[in-house]
């Protein structure tokens, strides 16, 4: 990897910019790797580690942005039951591909981070639940875990202490819903990946009914960084309420798509125009998905929004998983929404009535509008259907996640939707059928 962009702050990704870094155990340890895990196990209590993460203000990178240290502190302090750490590597949110980078290029960072998190929550077993399509990332993780075990970094009585830790990967089978933490647990247990109603929450009743914490790959990978530099130093990056850096995976109509480690609070425009070299082909920015499709769509006039949890929230969207999808003026919003609706229709688990039927109904309507059979009442019906499945009416957040891009796309580009219905077709160049073919090819 080349030198980082000047706006980048490579904390997690700093090794990836070193010439010849191969992600092996030797290379990782040469840069101080696993010292933080050793330090935690040998000289810190689990609560001290949790407090350091609390002090850092780290918020989960898996989409919800929940305070990581707080989540860890929900785990029982004393318990006769086994505790589990599940690392959510089911990276499936449309537009998101940052965890893959960590697992492929620096898997030991993920292993060490997971080990630290496991120690903090008093777990002796970690399962890394890897998206089924991520065969190569899983192989990289398996290799790193095997290397760590062979080197005495995993196993029994680590560093001469009573603490023992085992780690395994577990492949998903290609269902998006299994990235939802309770569905992930069901899937790990060998059942259908149906989200569980909450409460009970995983910290009390998680995998196999045991106290469980589920953290995103990037979240745990940040733990060694925070332990190494200290919470105060980490907080110098980012904003007071969203401290630190985050990985932004930029895709779409930019000149230099890719994964960049950036301080939270960086304006979206700086990411698009400076880090990624601007919109391609000299065209103008039209809109962008803030952090994966389920977080919602913002039109170009909001491009100055700082990318931190609070700022995007004020615009009615979420920071999500750092998957910034950029669309220039040649993009059809209806078509983009149709492609997403196809995805959500395919991936709803089908458990809750509204989500199961609603996803298909929305896709049918949006598809018709894009393909020229829109009816005058379609957009109004669509908005009404969204209200009927969104707003906490279902077991998990899937339906709300689908509602975000639909609702924001209609709100910001209502004229474009109406134009499709009025013209009886898509005013943009490429036909909707071809777009669908491309998706299903």
């Amino acid at each position: 990897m080349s030198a980082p962009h000047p706006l980048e702050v490579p904390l997690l990704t700093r090794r990836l910019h070193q010439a010849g870094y191969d992600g092996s155990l030797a290379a990782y340890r040469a840069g101080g790797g696993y010292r933080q895990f050793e330090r935690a196990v040998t000289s810190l209590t689990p609560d001290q580690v949790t407090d350091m993460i609390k002090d850092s203000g780290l918020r989960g990178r898996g989409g919800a942005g929940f305070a990581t240290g707080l989540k860890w502190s929900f785990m029982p302090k004393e318990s006769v039951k086994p505790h589990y750490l599940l690392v959510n590597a089911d990276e499936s949110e449309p537009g998101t591909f940052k965890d893959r980078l960590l697992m492929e290029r620096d898997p030991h960072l993920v292993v060490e981070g997971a080990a630290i998190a496991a120690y903090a929550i008093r777990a002796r077993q970690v399962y890394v639940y890897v998206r089924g399509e991520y065969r190569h990332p899983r192989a990289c993780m398996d290799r790193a875990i095997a290397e760590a075990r062979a080197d005495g970094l995993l196993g029994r009585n680590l560093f001469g202490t009573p603490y023992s830790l085992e780690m395994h990967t577990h492949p998903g089978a290609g269902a998006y819903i299994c990235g939802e933490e309770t569905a992930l647990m069901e899937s790990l247990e060998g059942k259908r990946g149906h989200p569980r109603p909450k409460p009970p929450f995983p910290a009390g009743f998680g995998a196999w009914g045991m106290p469980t914490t589920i953290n995103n790959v990037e979240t745990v990978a940040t733990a060694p960084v925070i332990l190494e530099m200290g919470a105060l130093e980490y907080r110098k990056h980012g904003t007071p309420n969203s401290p630190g850096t985050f990985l932004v995976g930029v895709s779409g109509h930019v000149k230099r798509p890719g994964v960049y480690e950036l301080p939270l609070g960086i304006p979206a425009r700086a990411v698009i125009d400076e880090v990624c070299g601007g919109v391609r082909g000299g065209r103008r920015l039209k809109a962008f998905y803030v952090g994966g499709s389920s977080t919602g769509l913002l039109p170009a006039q909001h491009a100055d929004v700082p990318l931190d949890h609070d700022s995007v929230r004020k615009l009615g969207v979420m920071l999500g998983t750092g998957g910034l999808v950029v669309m220039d003026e040649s993009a059809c919003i209806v078509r983009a929404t149709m492609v997403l609706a196809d995805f959500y229709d395919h991936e709803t688990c089908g458990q809750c009535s509204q989500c199961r039927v609603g996803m298909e109904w929305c896709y049918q309507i949006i598809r018709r509008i894009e393909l020229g059979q829109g009816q005058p009442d379609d957009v109004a019906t669509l908005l009404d259907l969204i209200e009927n499945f969104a707003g906490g009416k279902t077991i998990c957040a899937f339906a709300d996640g689908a509602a975000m891009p639909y609702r924001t796309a209609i709100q910001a580009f209502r004229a474009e939707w109406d134009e499709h219905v009025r013209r009886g077709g898509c005013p943009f160049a490429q036909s909707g059928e071809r777009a669908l073919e491309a998706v299903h090819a």
Partner: protein
Amino acid sequence: MAELIPITINDREHQAPLGARLIDVITEITGEEIPRFCYHRDLPVVGSCRMCQVEIEAPAPGNVLRKALAISCRTSVQRGMQVWTQSPAAQNARRGVLEFLLKDHPLDCPICDKAGECPLQDYTYREGQSEGRSHDPRRKRRKRVSLGDVIVLDQERCVLCSRCVRFFPAVEGREQLQVLDIANRSVIGTFDDRPLTGNYQGNLADICPVGALTLRKFRFQARVWNTRPMPSTCTRCSRGCAIQVDAYRGRVVRIRPRYDAEVNKSWMCDVGRFTFDDWNLPGRLATGIQATAGGATDLGVDGGAQCAGQWLAEAGAAALLVGSPCLTQEEGQALLELARGLGTDAHFLAPEPGAGDGVLYTGDPAPNRRGLTDLGLTPMSPEDLRRHLSGAGASLLAGEKILHFLHGLDPGSGDVAVPATNAGPRSIVIDTHPREGFGLCLPARSAVEKGGTVRNVQGLDRRLRPVLPAPPGVPDGVALLARIATAAARHGALVG
């Protein structure tokens, strides 16, 4: 007993047990049934259909009151709780769910067996909107899928509540049905279309809240609004499950379980459910018929009772009295009193119990074994009865099915011929149909025509109720036995 706390439902204060399930509490207190598909009182709660949403306000952490929609099947009664079942938000949420469920529903109520007792239909009338908004075709799914001998599946009518999926593990301890595929491609089915097996398949048609799972035996037999449901107790084994018998044009067309918390909860077995052809058999005996040399004489019921009394009185203590294991406690008592007057014992025919299935079906075909034993009737095996029968001076075999048990025939079979019994010239049988080999045949009511008590295997007394009218002239079993006893007394027997 949980502590009773105040709870406000629709702006009226009530008392409810702390921690109780809201969906049940609302019904118990106000009588209002909150619409539900996936929730069933005797199945694990999944909360997935989202139909039972109500609006609640309850103290959240930090002592703030939070008003929100909640599914009442997964909400427990807590302190300071307010519930609105008909607020605009609650009504909208439920109407929204119904609209989604109806989007692909075939609306084939006119040919659907469930129509008339269909929760989807009822809730739609009650809460739904009458116009559909979809411009898109309904999803095609498989119809008339055979799931074995008992159940037919229509995937298009299914609302995927998963009651049927949860039923088998919860009741039988094994899985049979599954949700296959995901999203709106989800369907109910068995792996590889394997047929369902076991003794509890019929319950699926009861718990299915739509017409997706129907009984092969009841399909297209009757519209449910024309049937007359009557509560009674099942007599096909010694469990005594509470049942509801549906009659149509004087025939039993369906039997369903009735809730009994101590016996069968919401379930019953397929043996009990599907054994009713015998009750619809024609050719009923409605008079007293004496076998005479070269023919038969119609004595009428009274004449028959007189004749029986005389024969038994003349035999006195040598008379053999055996009741059917299907006798009610009241009939058993009457037989006992008759025996006392004659100075002899009353027996009941006690067939060898078969194997139970570990759930409800006990395998014991004698429904009132425990009750008749408790009354003081002596059990007699079919072998012993056959041995004693031909040698007895006079004998009385009383009650429907007794000859089936005597000859080892399936008591529930509707079309089995009962062979002639070699019972001697002064033998009397009280049964539903004329029988050969007896000196005198008297009529009996069947288990769906008589009232009375049976004591089940657990020792619980349960009521039989006359669901169908007995054929004209067929007296109640207790009355008939009493008439025989009176006649016997007239001929010299002691009166009990």
